[in-house]
């Protein structure tokens, strides 16, 4: 065991070495000053392993492994595969630690440990937390799980029924099991936890169920709760204290989490946190965005609805908020802001800035000064007709009046639709190219607001939605974005939404999967598709790459269609009803003709 660790560390060191000296002919991005590798920021330079879903604290999903290059990727072959036995949407990122791969399945959230040292990676052990079946009834958009996290010999993951479980990475025994929420209040856990220092950070899902959103820090040792920061309600619940210095005036004030809601509505206002948390060890800040306010029908919740759709910078030790910025005040279209915040140092206007980069559902790519919370730029990366941009003076998103949903009236051609221009599917940033790679969707919608009762434990949505392909007719896109200039470098149009995560490597290859089951490798600089492989079911998972015990670079991805767009397949939904799956079925009615349910891990190598 120890040997393997040593090798891995060595390999990683090698890889980062390669990285620092780019191969001939490859120019570092942005002229003279190459951006420091994101991994160096995180202090986790081990490119051979994959310890957290987002690869590193900066959320770059960049791997320094360079064995697979643009020239040899065409020879990539299936190394082995593994069936998870669960036929729901597989959104998780596998972890690779010390020669073992850990994968967590959707409900019933089985954790498998696969032994990479042996041929065909046989099952070492599996851990079955047996979550309550009833939890399936409150999981808004398929019973997914986005992965586990590894630290300190423990694999930590969430179950759908609100448990966070730590399992001994070696033995598969449960170390601790913490109950964080209640399905009877509509809460579920679907996110991949993040372990910062000795704390496990977990947020809840259920913005469609009238939950009250929070992020909780658990003690990695025993699972005890260290702090919990709510995303609505009075300042003391939100952990807003004297340190709190938001950049914009509209985010300042006392108890905004109460006063910006109709009375009592903040108690059921949603704003969970089911996406990505990033961490800057240097500033000792975590960054994450909160989810949408509920119900969807904005007329039922006049006001800014703080702190939904907000990015928070918090101290990981106490949870105390340092700054916040609300992306979508009075969110109109379920535009959760749970998307990843990449912690990067970029040359902005000739000046090196510590920034946060965030592709937001509302279609704008936000670049922040991560110390102050100032929006440096917010450029649209996809077609949007619901907002004219962000007023950088006030920081407010400028909504288009005629696209505001209203009760009892269908507002048509809302772009981007409820899943936003880009949903949870995480992006990757390559310091070599200086580009951000991400799949996103090109979906517009018609929406009608409805009256809705809050009935605890039932959906609290209040909208009829009907989605369809946006301009151009393609429903997905894989895009390379230059965050410094705010321009699109290149883009690949896909028939279906690209709901998978992305990984980019030092070989300048970016990997992603499509919902009709193609796993693709593209040239990170040109966007040429270099290789593709048809897997068993549509891909909505997060590809990873690692160095196997044999020293070879592997690429792994879970296939198994599902999630919100794939619910038509994974949930046997009926396309006769265009409003099914909160309206996504209408846009995906042909998906069953392309793929069926699945749940298989595919691992590729040269």
């Amino acid at each position, binding site marked *: 065991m120890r040997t393997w660790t040593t090798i891995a560390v060595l390999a990683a060191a090698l890889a980062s070495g390669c990285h620092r000296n780019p191969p001939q002919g490859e120019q570092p991005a942005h002229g003279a000053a190459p951006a420091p590798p994101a991994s160096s920021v995180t202090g986790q330079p081990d490119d051979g392993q994959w310890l957290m879903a987002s690869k590193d604290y900066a959320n770059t999903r960049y791997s320094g492994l360079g064995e697979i290059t643009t020239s040899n990727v065409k020879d990539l072959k299936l190394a082995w595969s593994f069936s998870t036995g669960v036929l729901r949407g597989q959104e998780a990122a596998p972890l690779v630690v010390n020669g073992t791969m850990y994968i967590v399945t959707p409900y019933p959230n089985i954790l498998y440990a696969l032994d990479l040292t042996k041929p065909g990676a046989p099952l070492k052990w599996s851990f079955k937390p047996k979550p309550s*079946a*009833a*939890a*399936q*009834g*409150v*999981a*808004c*958009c398929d019973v997914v799980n986005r992965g586990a996290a590894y630290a300190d010999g423990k694999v930590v993951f969430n179950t759908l029924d609100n448990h966070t479980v730590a399992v001994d990475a070696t033995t598969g025994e449960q170390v601790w099991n913490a109950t964080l929420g209640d399905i009877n209040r509509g809460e579920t856990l679907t996110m991949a936890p993040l372990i910062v220092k000795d704390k496990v950070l977990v947020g809840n899902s259920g913005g*469609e169920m009238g939950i009250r959103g929070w992020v909780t820090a658990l003690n990695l040792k025993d699972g005890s709760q260290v702090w919990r920061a709510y995303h609505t309600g009075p300042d003391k619940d939100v952990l807003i204290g004297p340190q709190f210095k938001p950049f914009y005036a509209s985010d300042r004030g006392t108890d905004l989490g109460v006063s910006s809601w109709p009375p009592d509505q903040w108690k059921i206002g949603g704003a969970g946190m089911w996406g990505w948390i990033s961490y800057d060890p240097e500033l000792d800040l975590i960054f994450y965005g909160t989810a949408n306010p509920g119900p969807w029908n904005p007329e039922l919740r006049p006001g800014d609805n703080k702190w939904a759709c907000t990015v928070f910078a918090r101290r990981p030790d106490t949870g105390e908020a340092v700054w916040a910025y609300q992306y979508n005040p009075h969110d109109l279209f379920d535009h959760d802001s749970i998307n990843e915040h990449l912690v990067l140092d970029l040359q902005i206007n000739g000046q090196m800035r510590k920034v946060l980069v965030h592709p937001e559902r509302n279609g704008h790519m936000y670049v922040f000064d991560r110390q102050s919370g100032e929006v440096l730029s917010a450029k649209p990366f996809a077609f949007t007709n619901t907002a004219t941009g962000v007023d950088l003076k006030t920081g407010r998103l400028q909504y288009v009046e005629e696209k505001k949903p209203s009760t*009892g009236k*269908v507002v048509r051609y809302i772009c981007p639709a409820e899943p936003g221009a880009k949903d949870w599917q995480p992006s990757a940033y390559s310091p070599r190219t200086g580009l951000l790679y991400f799949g996103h969707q090109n979906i517009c919608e*018609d929406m*009608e607001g*409805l009256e*809705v*009762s809050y*009935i605890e*434990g*039932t*959906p*609290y*949505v209040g909208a*009829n939605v*009907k989605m369809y392909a946006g301009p151009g007719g393609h429903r997905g896109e894989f895009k390379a974005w230059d965050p410094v200039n705010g321009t699109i470098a290149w883009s690949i149009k896909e028939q279906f939404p690209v709901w998978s995560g992305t990984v980019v490597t030092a070989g300048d290859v970016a990997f992603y999967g499509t919902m009709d089951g193609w796993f693709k490798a593209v040239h990170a600089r040109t966007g040429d598709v270099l290789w593709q492989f048809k897997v068993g079911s549509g891909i909505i998972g997060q590809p990873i790459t690692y160095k196997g015990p044999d020293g070879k670079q592997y690429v792994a991805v879970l296939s198994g269609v599902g999630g919100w767009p794939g*619910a038509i397949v994974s*949930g*046997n*939904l*009926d*396309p*006769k*009803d*265009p*409003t*099914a*799956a*909160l309206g996504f*079925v209408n846009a995906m009615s042909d998906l069953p003709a392309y793929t069926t349910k699945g749940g298989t891990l595919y691992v590729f190598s040269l």
Partner: protein
Amino acid sequence: MRTELVLIAAMAVAVCGCKRETRTFRESPPASMASDVAVSDLHPGGGNPPARSISPYEQNAWALNEGKRLFSAYNCSGCHANGGGGMGPALIDDEWSYGHEADQIYRTILEGRPNGMPAWRGKIPDAQIWQLAAYIRSMSGLAPKDAAPSRSDHMNGPPPENAAPRMIPKNAGTPPAAER
């Protein structure tokens, strides 16, 4: 003879008309029926599965429409959308996990089902559950077309219940009754 025929025809029309149009506001719903729900086609020991009774409201336009109203009022539509499903399964198709008969649906609502269907006992009055059960059957075309609701004053969704294609239930617990 002819007069009799005419009379019988007239009475038949009258009865149908009344059933469809009656509006009873103070409902006395039928007592609960057999205590379990057969969701299997397998009946060991021979004999026929117990006869199913149809919802008292299935032919009543007012009650079906009430069912439709309650379907969204009680957030059923939150999970099942307008029948196509979402968090919950589709209701306009021919698959019925726990049976398509009115009393099976009644029990599904009343008692909940393990994979996420909440138990509504004590939260929805009995008569309304029966109305919901009747309406849910109409969603897949199992109620008479002249009594089933028409489109709602909302976004155009699936075909309205009075135009819903009749989906002959598959994997029904008790097949023959489906042919009603």
